[in-house]
């Protein structure tokens, strides 16, 4: 049981960080499909920075800086050029995947898996089975709670929600919705960098091409499933992680009888079901498109 909790937390922590970035963007009124790209930038930059400089802090610093810069680029394209956030977000994802590949090839000459000498600091063996978890796992509940306080209990959170839901109202009380979105996206960039670093350096200490494997999109789905509420979205992300951990567990238990590849698909299927349920409950995409109130069956 303890092992299962550990596996869930390992799978889920990067996902929760990215989900929180998605919550921030959602509150500010941006459909953030660039999460996947930001996350792989976080993975790649933290590992390459660590390997090249030998310092964990430098690696994390580079990851945060690049993710914030990429978020600002997305903000510019969506906000200033008026691009469609869905397609621009997918473009950012492609940019992250291609850019990480290019960076690895530029430095190592081939598309290799990069091993990092050290990982994030861990809890240590006095915690028994939980000793393998990194500090970012411990920090995760505080981040979720902190974000809840920020969004629901502060002036900034209200202004952000107003910018997302009713920009005109926000503007009429002197809040600049565009700037609020920039702040939200850049804060999200920091969270994505942390999520990427946790994925790459938390337990595996490697970087491999495409290692995020759709976690950014899952995080986005968790935001939809959780209705944009930080705690509910984090719970949704943990639900996807439980399914993912169950898939890993099932591989160990009956990997010889059930095809592994299909067990690996479990978290994706859970995500589809999650989006489907939230569609049923809240009319999910109803809020998301002008089609909603016009469905005619």
């Amino acid at each position, binding site marked *: 049981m303890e092992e299962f909790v550990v596996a869930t937390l390992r799978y889920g922590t990067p996902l929760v960080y990215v989900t929180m970035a998605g919550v921030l963007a959602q509150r500010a009124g941006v459909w953030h499909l660039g999460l996947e790209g930001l996350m792989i930038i976080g993975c790649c930059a933290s590992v390459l920075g660590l390997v090249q400089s030998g310092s964990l802090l430098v690696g994390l610093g580079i990851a945060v800086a690049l993710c914030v810069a990429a978020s600002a680029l997305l903000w510019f394209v969506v906000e200033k050029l008026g*691009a*469609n956030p869905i*397609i621009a977000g997918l473009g950012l994802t492609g940019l992250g995947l291609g850019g990480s590949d*290019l960076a690895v090839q530029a430095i190592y000459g081939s598309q290799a898996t990069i091993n990092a000498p050290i990982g994030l600091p861990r809890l240590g063996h006095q915690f028994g089975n939980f000793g393998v978890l990194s500090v970012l796992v411990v920090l995760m509940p505080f981040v979720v709670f902190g974000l809840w306080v920020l969004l629901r209990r502060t002036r900034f959170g209200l202004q952000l929600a107003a910018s997302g839901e009713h920009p005109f109202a926000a503007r009429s009380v002197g809040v600049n919705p565009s700037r609020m979105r920039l702040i939200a996206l850049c804060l999200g960039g920091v969270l994505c960098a942390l999520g990427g670093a946790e994925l790459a350096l938390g337990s595996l200490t490697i970087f491999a091409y495409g290692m995020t494997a759709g976690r950014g999109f899952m995080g986005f789905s968790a935001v939809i499933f959780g209705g944009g509420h930080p705690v509910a979205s984090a719970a949704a992300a943990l639900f996807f992680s439980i399914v993912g951990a169950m898939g890993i567990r099932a591989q160990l238990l009956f990997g010889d009888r059930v095809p592994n590849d299909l067990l*690996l698909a479990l978290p994706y299927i859970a995500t589809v079901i999650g989006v489907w349920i939230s569609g049923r409950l809240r009319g999910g995409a109803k809020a998301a498109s002008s089609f909603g109130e016009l469905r005619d069956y």
Partner: protein
Amino acid sequence: MEGKLIAVGRALAFVLLALGLCGVIFEFAGYSALEMFESIADGAFLNPNAWQGSLRWALPLFITACGVIISFRSGYFNVGAQGQFYMGAIAATFVVDFMNGLPAAIVVPFSFVGGIAGGAVWALWPGYLRVRSGADEVITTLMGNFISGLILIYVTGGILKDPSGTGQVMASRPVAIAYRISSETGLSPAIVGTAVLVGVLMWVLINRTAFGVLSSLAGRNPTMVVWQGARMSRLGLAGFVLGGALAGLAGAIEVLGPNGRLVSGFLPTHGFTAILIALVAGLSISGAAIVSLFFGGLAAASLYLPVLVGLPAAAIDIINAAIALFITARAAPGLGWLIGRRSRAAGGA
């Protein structure tokens, strides 16, 4: 006409902006941007054999892009072209494998139908969840891409596995020569003919039929369509399924044509590139025919770069991604409704 010229000019301007961003990234990564662009142009169009390669990549991309155009026009973000392409390829391979031994005149058409059906089914479930339950189609189709990728690994490593394979790359048994519709070059009357036929049929469907007019209106002004008495959910679902069917057809062509077998993880950016073609072309079929050549050229260059010039093929992925980042910018008319729909949703972004 003038409006169209402006649209083309703006699309070109944003593509150039995207290339500028790519140049910065290349320089940042330590490559000479000028050398990179020269090599890409060489691999895509300038060297004598390049046009053949570009056309080989452009034809299947064009077919998939036509499908993307149909579903985007009817107002749905079907970004699952990749998954539908894979499922079409898998279904076509199953048909060929199952009917092995029968005359080609029977097997090839059935295999095409199999590919079309495979792609259509893989578009049907996200479409159904969308119109029936309001499940966001962007997420379901993206997840469909990942799931179909795993299914592809599963069938190439299991049921369809080539026992004589080296084990390095998981692949299916090769398609018998009799059933191949082209050689490795990927250019044959059958493939060119299919692409032209698809293009003409889709052009007629969009520009000359009630379905085309209604589905385009459904994307722009759903209220009006409902008031006209058309059924939005049916239109949307039809657009979805047609999009999937065409992506599946492209998958079947890749397997029976240039690829000659099903390889796990093959052409991982096909669907994304097709979406780009649709958007750069401003969701017009005739535009897509031209734009496909450009992106086909880029695809050809991604093979040319690492082998002949020693530059990483990731450069092409970056160019594609940067174009995606900029191409829907509001300044590009004809796509305004796409922006309008989602940003209204997101609260006026």
